[in-house]
């Protein structure tokens, strides 16, 4: 099953294939209207996409989501096994896998079911828990936000839905894994996470795609609600192939005393435009974004974070580490806005850039607004290269030049690495070795 090109008809077909309720279909069509009337982003890298050539929906099997690997198509299972997906499940409390447009696998440990935690695909949630979904879906990220959020609203397929009930904590993270295997494929997953009051969640997302000569598109939307006294951490390492446009809108709404943490790693893709956002709506709420972007040959990483302070005594922290090498372009683009009512608030923005050679580029484009007198924003930025002095020191201990550079690069990214679960930190090292 494959749907190419973007028309009202295609959108209706997707909706019918998924057997959706009328409200979902309406949402799709409204989004499409917005998409058609909107311009491409006026900032950042040039996005050259022919929307008529993209595959908007594709599945190889039209069966239901599996909860056991034995029932997943063997070819797909073997492919995911090679990528280490099956192995990584051992470290999680639950895992979902999306292959092309549909979630093909979902499993969580028994204990979570007893705790009334919901971890499923967004389509499944729309059918089983419509009231819960309706309350938040499209409320945190509106389809009128930007062209790619509108595109996602029209053709979204797959993605996770997580609900953590009040007073609930998980011992280990939940994970989703996204894979694009076809050329010209668009993946438009839609994730909605609700962490009800006094609860905690760590969610991990990993992405890969094989390389094809024709560009693929990943335009996801992630909406998160963090309830009172709750905490949510969302960890991503994207390693899309170097011909994938990765244009993602991620936003969390944080209630009183809540904490949201984005741990965001951008290693792959051709062009990435992604600025995870925290709307600090409740008083005393906190937002953190630790982001790294690594741009190698032909890559443009345009990433950063946004922190919108609405509540009083709110705190935010953005730590951005960019590395540009082999002619890549790694740009930090971020925004901190402390609104007039958000008194006694504090924001810290720290952007460090490491440029590996003279062909590579980096920019820091911050927008910092503080609209009341009792709050403040601290901004620090550094740009450096690997110094000959540091290399000489490491090499004088017998470490060869490549390994010495690697140590310095990993050291530069340590603030990010130390936030990752062990097996992800190891994987990150491998990815960096391959990419730089």
């Amino acid at each position, binding site marked *: 099953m494959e749907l190419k090109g973007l028309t009202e008809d295609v959108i209706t077909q997707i909706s019918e294939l998924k057997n959706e309720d009328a409200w979902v279909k309406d949402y799709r069509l409204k989004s499409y209207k917005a998409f058609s009337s909107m311009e491409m982003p006026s900032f950042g890298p040039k996005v050259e996409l022919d929307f008529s050539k993209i595959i908007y929906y594709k599945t190889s099997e039209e069966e239901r989501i599996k909860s056991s690997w034995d029932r997943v198509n063997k070819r797909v299972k073997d492919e995911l096994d090679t990528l280490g997906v099956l192995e990584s499940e051992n470290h999680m409390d639950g895992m979902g896998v999306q292959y092309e447009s549909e979630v093909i696998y979902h499993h969580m440990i028994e204990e979570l079911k007893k705790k009334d935690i919901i971890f499923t695909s967004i389509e499944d949630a729309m059918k089983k828990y419509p009231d819960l979904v309706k309350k938040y879906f499209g409320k945190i990220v509106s389809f009128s936000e930007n062209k790619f959020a509108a595109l996602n609203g029209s053709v979204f397929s797959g993605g996770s839905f997580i609900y953590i009930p009040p007073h609930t904590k998980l011992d280990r993270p939940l994970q989703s894994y996204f894979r694009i295997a076809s050329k010209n494929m668009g993946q438009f997953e839609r994730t909605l996470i609700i962490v009800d009051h006094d609860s905690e969640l760590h969610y991990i997302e990993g992405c890969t795609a094989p390389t094809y000569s024709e560009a693929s598109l990943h335009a996801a939307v992630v909406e998160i609600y963090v309830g009172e006294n709750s905490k949510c951490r969302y960890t991503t390492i994207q390693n899309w192939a170097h011909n994938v446009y990765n244009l993602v809108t991620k936003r969390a709404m944080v209630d009183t005393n809540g904490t949201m943490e984005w741990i965001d790693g951008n290693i792959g893709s051709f062009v990435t435009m992604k600025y995870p956002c925290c709307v600090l709506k409740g008083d005393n709420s906190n937002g953190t974004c630790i982001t790294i972007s690594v741009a190698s040959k032909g890559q443009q990483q345009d990433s950063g974070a946004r922190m919108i302070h609405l509540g009083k005594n709110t705190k935010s922290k953005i730590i951005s580490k960019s590395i540009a090498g082999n002619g890549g372009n790694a740009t930090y683009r971020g925004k901190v806005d402390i609104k007039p009512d958000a008194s006694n608030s504090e924001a810290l923005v720290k952007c460090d850039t490491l440029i590996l050679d003279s062909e590579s580029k980096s920019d820091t484009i911050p927008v910092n607004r503080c609209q009341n007198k009792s709050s403040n924003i601290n901004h620090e930025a550094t740009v450096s290269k690997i110094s000959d*002095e540091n290399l*000489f020191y*490491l*090499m*004088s201990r017998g470490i*060869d030049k490549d390994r010495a550079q690697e140590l*310095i690069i990993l*050291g530069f990214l*340590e603030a990010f690495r130390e936030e990752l679960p062990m097996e992800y930190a190891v994987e990150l090292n491998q990815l960096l070795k391959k990419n730089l």
Partner: protein
Amino acid sequence: MKIEIKNLTVKTKDEKEILKNFSLTISEGEVHAIMGPNGTGKSTLAKVLLGDSAYEVISGDILVDGTSILDKTTDERARMGIFLAFQSPISIEGVSNTEFLKTAMNVRREEKIGLYPFLQTMNQALKDLNMDEAMMHRSLNQDFSGGERKKNEILQLKLLEPSFIILDELDSGLDVDSLRVCATNIANYLKDHPKTSVLVITHYPRILSYLPLNYVHRMNEGAIVETGDMELAKKIEKEGYLRDNVLREDVNHE
């Protein structure tokens, strides 16, 4: 390890000649000291022995056990067993001391060192040097005092087991007690490794009094101008380098 430096002339990248026809032979197991005013090329000599690409060798040769090492890279020379304790060790963000030490130990062995033997060796060395174990989990030399950085150099020396040691002003930035601890550790190392040779660059005889010293050389304007023993070191401490050099040193400081 035997080191022969033969008629070495060295320039910086901006064409400034620093070593001029410099010659010195250090035989296996010998301890040599070089004293000389600031800016006379002592640190340059130390770095050139390790192949620092900031300098260019114009003529002459450096032989290790009879073979030229001029075409060898810094890391290759280090793996041959040459070790430089830096005058001002740099710090590197995010690279933990432990990780760095383990990497440096592993690059010179066939089989990687196991975690347990590594920790055992490291902890013994920390104890010998009177260093805080917690420092090993911090970033390399980051937030270390001048003295701690120097001790960390000697810790590396003990773990990497070199055959030729260059100490570039180890005594600067060390208090009397720390200097004694460091120097005693080196002296003990030399007892266990009698074939290891040493080049000590210093301004003061104190450090030399801890070591089995063979020769003291006075260096001036890129070459050795006088050779003697401990008495020469004491004389230099008492009388200074040449009067005109003392003046020049003052000028250099400003």
